């Protein structure tokens, strides 16, 4: 029995939330002493796929199909469910991202699996049962959810689990299940992304100032704070040295 993790890409690249889910799934795999298999759908380069090994995946199933370059909820759900069956996985992990919120329930329904969405911590596994802490009441409380189904699906909240590099390597295999034409019922016409700022889930540091910033007269204060944070990250995290813009204000 292995654990399967679905890894989202953005324009062929994996972002922080992708490494979070792989790191999280790897910790579960280590706890129950099994392998971690990842699945990627869309056009992602081989070295990018193999790079998931650094976060603990031992194998990456690659579904490279032009029709799946953009997110197609039904087709993606069918493919991932098929991968769960073919790998004999009892636990599927994915991100509780905007796409994940639409995807995880469909996969769970296909597999008759219990679903823990918005997971915040590693699950506790006791025999066939799994309990996991999740958000509830619009993040004003936490709930502990118990899953008792044979197959379990966990959708991890973005930014809830730190990425951990384990230094391994992953083999990449082509995975090409039969996809029913009736699964291609939606077509992406256009994707518009803000290119001048980092999306909130991807930001390393979020400064929430809200009304406290008041008017434009506080602009100097804000710029000084941003400068100081970037300088601090220069010292600590070389990755951020090249990306001061990764700090986003809300």
């Amino acid at each position, binding site marked *: 029995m292995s654990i399967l993790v679905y890894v989202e890409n953005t324009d062929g690249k994996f972002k922080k939330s992708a490494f979070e889910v792989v790191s999280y799934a790897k910790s579960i795999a280590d706890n129950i002493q099994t392998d971690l298999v990842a699945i990627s759908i869309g056009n992602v380069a081989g070295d990018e796929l193999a790079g998931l090994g650094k976060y603990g995946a031992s194998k990456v199933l690659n579904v490279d199909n032009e029709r799946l370059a953009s997110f197609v909820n039904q087709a993606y759900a069918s493919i991932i469910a098929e991968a769960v069956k073919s790998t004999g996985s009892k636990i599927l992990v994915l991100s509780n991202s905007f796409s994940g*919120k639409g995807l995880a*329930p*469909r996969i769970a329904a296909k597999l008759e699996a219990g679903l823990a969405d918005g997971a915040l911590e590693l699950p506790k596994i006791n025999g066939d049962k799994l309990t996991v802490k999740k958000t*509830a009441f619009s993040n004003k409380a936490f709930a502990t959810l*118990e*899953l008792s189904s044979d197959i379990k699906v966990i959708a991890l909240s973005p930014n809830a689990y730190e990425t951990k590099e384990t230094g391994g390597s992953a083999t990449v295999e082509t995975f090409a299940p039969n996809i029913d034409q009736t699964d291609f019922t939606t077509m992406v016409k256009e994707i518009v992304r803000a290119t001048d700022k980092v999306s909130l889930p991807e930001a390393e540091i979020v400064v929430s100032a809200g009304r406290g910033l008041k008017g434009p007269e506080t602009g100097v204060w804000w710029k000084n704070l941003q400068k100081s944070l970037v300088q601090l990250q220069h010292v600590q995290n070389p990755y951020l040295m090249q990306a001061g813009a990764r700090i986003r204000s809300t």
Partner: protein
Amino acid sequence: MLYGLTPLHAMLGLANQIAKYAKDNAFDLILTGRESIDYNGAQVGAIVGELLHIPSVSIAKKVDIAGDAVTVEREIEGGKEVLTAKLPIVIGTAEGVAEPKIPNMRGIMSARTKPLDVLEPSAIDVLEHIVSYETPAPRGTVKLVDAAEVEKLVSLLHDEAKVI
């Protein structure tokens, strides 16, 4: 109205009831909200779509329907995605999809005359349930830092709070 469902039946149970009714009555368009305010799962719409084998779109900010062609604008990380589909479809609607209309007195009175069908839920498997709740740890004391002392704020966040 579905009578007799409890939180223990969770999202799959709820979606099963809706899907069963929708299947029997052949709806072309099923609208749900973005997510419930208790468990914030956003699951029901997607599961209904799966059970009915029709497309589902979550977190829709704009919906246009022309004949059987549907155009949906949905939120994604850092932007938006515009997609097309055909009816029938399930759409989980988010804020901004429509302007709330406050009913007038005539509407409120006429609503009382509309039929209210009470349905018995069908049998469902319980695959997950909540075992406990907890509230977040209470907030600690607040330190106010003068706007002119940005370096001090960064130092506190780094050395004391250890969040950066």
